[in-house]
């Protein structure tokens, strides 16, 4: 199966470390890469780096770019590559989102997968204290 590629783009080293953490959990991830953009990096150079990363992980069925924060430079740079069926962007990357992209097993389209990754990211945020209040816990939570 051809896999949707993944590029994690962040300020500082967050992207590299997220990828390293995901690899510790699920094993080697050759179809996902990371681009860390320094606070003072030149935007043009960063743009080239994202372009290279997208090309590297592409297997021909699209690339999902996961960025750290909507409105930030990593997102704004990545947005230049947004292209239907080729490049999708989901912001607010967290470890469960990377693991979702790493482990999806059924063939799917880039846009459906992007939606699944977005949903996974949102669903993976828990106020853990709520788990200690079983009487208040919603049944579908």
């Amino acid at each position, binding site marked *: 199966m051809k896999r949707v590629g993944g590029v994690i783009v962040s300020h500082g080293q967050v992207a590299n470390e997220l990828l390293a953490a995901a690899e510790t*959990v699920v094993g080697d991830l050759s179809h996902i890469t990371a681009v860390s953009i320094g606070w003072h990096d030149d935007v043009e150079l960063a743009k080239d780096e994202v372009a290279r990363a997208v090309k590297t992980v592409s297997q021909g069925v699209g690339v999902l770019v996961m960025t750290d924060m909507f409105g930030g430079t990593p997102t704004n740079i990545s947005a230049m590559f947004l292209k239907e069926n080729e490049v999708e962007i989901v912001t607010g990357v967290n470890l469960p989102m990377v693991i*979702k992209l790493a*482990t999806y097993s059924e063939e799917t389209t880039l846009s459906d997968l992007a939606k699944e990754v977005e949903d996974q990211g949102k669903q*993976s945020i828990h106020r853990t204290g709520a788990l200690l209040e079983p009487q208040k816990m919603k049944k579908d939570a």
Partner: protein
Amino acid sequence: MLEGTVKVINPLGLHARAAAQLVQLAGSFNSGVILTRVDNSTTVDAKSILNVLTLAASMNTTLRLNVKGEDETQAFEAICGLFTNGFGEI
């Protein structure tokens, strides 16, 4: 279908790397593998790591294991074995 209970006995509980081992093992069989918390009925597909992590199964949590498929006997034994040896952590 085979059904039984397994208990988390390693001190760290069913954390990410332990869950990864479980998912990898469950995924090596054709049978469907379902885990359910006995205390609150949270039910997950044992072939999805993100699902397994939502069990939030700490040490001493008891889970019901359901295995169904052509290789259910081998799968059931292998998965029970993984819990029994505490995911190799004890």
